[in-house]
């Protein structure tokens, strides 16, 4: 069904499109053309695979989480270990692909936005490797809660530009990155980190992330001899989920479960559960579900996880929701913290708080489903960056 999307206007059903200032339209056309060329270019694809294997460390393992599974007493949980990638998250799959594309297009400067800092670090990393100038926009609020990643980006030679407008988080960083791109359109490549933004970005990012699902599908067939009953992934903008879901879309018997951030709870208004609580609207270049007020103003969102703290979502997720092919649930800050601690204790793995949301939903599912069921959870990132946040939640000071 979905495999042929987006259509030639960049739409997934009624979602997607190119809602951007006129200055960016020629740049998007140029990008569409360049991407179409490299998609068919075997030398490009080989180069991309070379870096995934030798620089990122792919394939990432699919690991049967025996300790976690036994502690829950239900379905078997397998973890797709994107946390083991170079730079510690799935984000690098996409930045490798896009930086190679930017080089092909002759761009010398890379712009990116970042929330938790994982995409910023992954962008700064590939920019350093290829000797490109790099500016990463980051909300002041996120700079405060992700100081480790800010320092990593600076070590890698990137300029981290603090964004003080609006809510001072990911959405405002993206606004500012778009303003930079409008201004420096001739020299700069905007490397978007999620399956959001105007066409062709949602498609490009999905294509560079589908390696997650392609590998996981092959690995589960090898290890369990069957397809999973469910695949579970967290959804902020939705790139790790899209990468995991996409190769399973044709497998109708596989449930696709996206997990959004319920923050303090869906009823409190302090959450980032766009698909659960939003309605269609236009932000950052595409028509998709959006958390907004009745006047179309984007509302403040909250999640303990900076990477999920985003009021929009990729348009293909909106399509998967409306078509019924994927289901979207949520996990609160509290549930994510509990799942975070559970994985630490049962598996010796410290997950990113983003990924902990997927784990929290998987824990619920595993308890409901019989033992012969198989669940794959996309462990999209590692949690080193989050230990300060978790310590603060636990009332522990790390500065003594």
């Amino acid at each position, binding site marked *: 069904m979905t495999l042929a999307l987006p259509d030639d*206007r960049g739409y997934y059903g009624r979602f997607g*499109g*190119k*809602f*951007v*200032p*006129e*200055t960016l*339209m*020629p*740049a998007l056309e140029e990008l569409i053309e360049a991407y179409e060329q490299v998609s068919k270019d075997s030398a490009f694809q080989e180069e991309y695979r070379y870096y995934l294997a030798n620089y990122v460390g792919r394939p990432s393992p699919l690991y049967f989480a025996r300790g976690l599974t036994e502690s829950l007493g239900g379905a078997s949980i397998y973890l797709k270990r994107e946390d083991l990638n170079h730079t510690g998250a799935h984000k690098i799959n996409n930045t490798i692909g896009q930086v190679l594309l930017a080089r092909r297009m002759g761009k010398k400067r890379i712009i990116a936005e970042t929330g938790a800092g994982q995409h910023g670090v992954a962008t700064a990393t590939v920019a350093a490797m290829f000797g490109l100038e790099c500016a990463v926009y980051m909300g002041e609020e996120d700079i405060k809660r992700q100081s480790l990643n800010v320092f990593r980006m600076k070590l890698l030679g990137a300029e981290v530009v603090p964004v003080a*407008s*609006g809510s001072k988080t990911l*959405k*405002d960083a993206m*606004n500012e990155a*778009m*303003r930079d791109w*409008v*201004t*420096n*359109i*001739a020299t700069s490549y905007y490397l978007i980190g999620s399956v959001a933004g105007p066409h062709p970005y949602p498609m490009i990012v999905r294509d560079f992330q589908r390696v997650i699902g392609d590998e996981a599908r092959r690995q589960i067939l090898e290890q369990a001899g069957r397809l999973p009953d469910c695949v579970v992934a967290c959804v902020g903008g939705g790139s790790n989920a899209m990468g995991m879901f996409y190769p399973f879309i044709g497998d109708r018997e596989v449930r696709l479960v996206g997990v959004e951030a319920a923050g303090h709870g869906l009823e409190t208004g302090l959450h980032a559960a766009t698909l659960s609580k939003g309605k269609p*609207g*236009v*932000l*950052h*270049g595409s*028509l998709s579900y*959006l958390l*907004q007020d*009745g*006047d*179309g*103003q*984007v509302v403040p969102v909250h999640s303990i996880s900076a990477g999920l703290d985003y009021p929009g979502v990729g348009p293909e997720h909106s399509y998967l929701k409306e078509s019924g092919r994927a289901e979207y649930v949520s996990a609160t800050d509290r549930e994510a913290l509990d799942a975070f601690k559970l994985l630490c204790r049962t598996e010796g793995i410290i997950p990113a708080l983003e990924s902990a949301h997927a784990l929290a939903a998987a824990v619920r599912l595993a308890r409901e489903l019989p033992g012969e069921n198989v669940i794959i959870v996309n462990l999209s990132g590692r949690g080193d960056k989050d230990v300060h946040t978790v310590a603060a939640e636990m009332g522990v000071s790390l500065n003594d």
Partner: protein
Amino acid sequence: MTRTANSRIKARLEEVLASGQKGLIAYITAGDPDLKTTVELAVAMAEAGTDVLELGVPFSDPVADGPTIQAASQRALAGGTTVQGIIEAVQAIRSRSDVPLVLMTYYNPVLQYGPAKFAAGLARAGGDGLIVPDLPPEESDELLKALDKNGLDLIPLVTPNTPPGRLQMIAARARGFIYCVSVTGVTGERENILTDLSAMTGAVRQYSELPVAVGFGISGPEQAVKVARHCDAVVVGSALVNIVSRRAGSAGLVNEVCEKVKELKQALAGPEVN
């Protein structure tokens, strides 16, 4: 294109040109500092020589705007400005002035209000058109249809990097006037405009007979005159919004904005604009 013949915006700009002057399109953000002030400002600005008034609808995420209009939008939203309130303000302005009136809005507020309802409401209130900076022609079918049906203009933006093929497509759908963005960048005052405006507006005129305006970065009378030599009208925004920001709440607000408008209009009425 039939309805453009009735465009109040186009008619006004052509009238100004016929008298040997160039047009002044003046922008302020609606609801900054409040809608009551916006109505007073608008009426006074029209009397001071504004040929077309452009009212900005504040949006939480204005990606085409620089710091000045971003801040104005946040002030307006913090004051509780709504789309409905702005349409009512348009009606209040129209009851006191016949100045052609354009709303500049990002697409999402229009989409949530409903494009058909928005167009009908704006037309009833006496508005004349819309500028939607994040709605390229590829996405504007629904809105264009709704505006055409209500006799309102959808004014397109073209930029220094718009290739000829797109220019032609944009011109074919244009109503009212064509808005040339002077720079690749966001709104805001600038010292210098490096774009070859004569080449840009010349290219636009190959595809359209509508008046051609230039905006983004124009702040003072001297700059306005330089720019006006290459076009039919200039748009001034951030320079006026900066006055509103500085003088908000003071009795001199309306006067100071109008002094600036008069200064600009006087320059655009002089012989050196042609």
